[in-house]
């Protein structure tokens, strides 16, 4: 384990870095339609959500509930049909499900590009690249090309690239969905450590209930057809770091799974 990430015991509830309670993301009455007229699909309907600075929020829902659409709206990759998304001038980074490291660059060059586009001067970059790769435990692998890395390593590389952007808000769209369970567990530890250390605001999309319970301060359960916020579940009572074997975590995950299944069943009918 790298020494730069916060040791687990420091993550216990109450010892989190001081966070100001101002919203980093304000989503108000946001609706999003795709297409026009009778064929239009309502992806999101009047969604309201405030994400506080330094908060870890998971958007949980079945496929097609508009959670990725919502993330794209926050990212500015798409614009809402009505309503407003305010990110208070914060710098935003995005981590995608497939590691979108550019295949024509080495891992190090990918991170370097992110630094360069962020405006880090050339002279400072090589050292910073190595630092970031160390942080995601890929030190010394900067010369590798993305296709030479395993899925987990690629996602860690993508994470290094996100960190290179020095963003305040990190949006994650099912970043670990394609990883095996063991690698995913390791990534959870890593992302939690970095979130705590850097005081990031994270908006994390997932369809994995255990992942949401494992990571989030609050989990936003979304319903589909049209997509909207069904319930918001606070997880503050569960001390960090959380273990999936912990009874309270399991109970909470069980309850959310039940709700999610009911939601899916409502649409399968």
């Amino acid at each position, binding site marked *: 384990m790298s020494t730069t990430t916060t040791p687990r015991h420091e993550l216990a509830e109450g010892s989190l870095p001081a966070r100001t309670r101002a919203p980093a993301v304000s989503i108000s009455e946001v609706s999003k339609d795709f297409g026009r007229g009778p064929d239009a699909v309502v992806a999101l309907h009047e969604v309201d959500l405030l994400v506080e600075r330094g908060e870890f929020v998971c958007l949980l829902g079945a496929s097609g509930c508009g959670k990725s659409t919502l993330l794209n709206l926050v*990212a500015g*990759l798409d614009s809402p049909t009505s309503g407003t998304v305010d990110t208070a001038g914060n710098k*935003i*980074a995005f981590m*995608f499900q497939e590691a979108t490291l550019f295949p024509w660059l080495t891992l190090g060059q990918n991170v370097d590009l992110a630094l360069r*586009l*962020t405006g880090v001067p050339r002279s400072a970059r090589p050292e910073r690249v190595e630092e970031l790769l160390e942080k995601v435990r890929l030190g010394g692998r900067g010369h590798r090309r993305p296709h*030479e890395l395993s899925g987990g390593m690629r996602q860690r590389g993508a994470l290094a690239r996100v960190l290179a*952007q020095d963003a305040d808000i990190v949006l994650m769209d099912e970043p670990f969905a394609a990883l095996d369970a063991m690698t995913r567990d390791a990534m959870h530890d890593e992302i939690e450590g970095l979130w705590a250390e850097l005081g990031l605001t994270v908006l994390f999309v997932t369809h994995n209930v255990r992942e949401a319970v494992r990571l989030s301060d609050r989990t936003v359960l979304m319903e589909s057809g049209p997509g909207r916020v069904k319930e918001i579940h606070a997880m503050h009572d569960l001390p960090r770091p959380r273990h999936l074997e912990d009874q309270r975590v399991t109970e909470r995950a069980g309850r959310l799974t039940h709700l999610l299944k009911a939601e899916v069943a409502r649409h399968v009918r």
Partner: protein
Amino acid sequence: MSVDLSSGIGTGTPTSRGASPSPATGEPSRRAARPGAGVRRAVEVVWPKLLAVLLVVALWQAIYASGWKPDYRFASPADTVERLWFVMSGNGPFNFWMGVQNTIMRGIQGFALSLVIGTILGIAVSQWRVLRNAIGAMITGLQTMPSIVWFPFAILLFGLDSSAIYFVVLMGAIPSIANGIINGIDDVPPSYLRAGHMLGARGWRRYRFVVIPAALPAYVAGLSQGWAFAWRGLLAGEIIVSIPEVPALGTQLNQAAVNGQSANLLALMIVVLVIGMLASFVFSSIGQRVRARRGLTGFTAGGG
């Protein structure tokens, strides 16, 4: 000498690394096996080509020996090779090396100009919808046009002059190059564009850091095809548009045919073939390199 760490299994010190077969085990070390393997691979690659050439020469000789056509119409392989050697040593009835140089220079110049125009045109068409609607289909259509069709028009425009040849070279190469870059840009995976956007690659940076590198394999393929069309157009042009004071391969081919110098003609054809093969080798190595760096090789649809 270079020290290959990957084969440094065991406790060999740098000074003992040079020792090849290990006397202790009696087995050749991996290092010692490598040069042999390299030679074997080279032989494996070369012998089918040699065999193919030998078969062609044998067939050629057989046809010649049958007496089907007189010597001045169909020269023997031996005569051709002798003639090839003769002209290559600068003793021909014409200035062989000047011709080769002129032809290659025309090719390079025409191709370079096509590269610039085709690239700009391709980017412009992929960027502006109006332009795409206007000439996108035309560019694809132009690719199907045999370059020789342009010559009467080119001669009418420019007269029997180098300009006419360049014009045809450009008309052949530009559509391929433009099309390559248009296809490349169209096929850039949206996930890279989104990632680039989030990294801050917007405006011209979007092109510099995402679109152009992502489109590079298709662009290289377009360049390769563009060169092939340029080369064909060029030789056709030199055969049709003879400029007496400028020796060129195409011109010399034509003269050899007119003068009934079959051995000369065949020797020149071999030269044209070799130059074409060398150029195609250069482009395919570039393409191969680009693909290998991206992990796009190793498991291919073709055999071995």
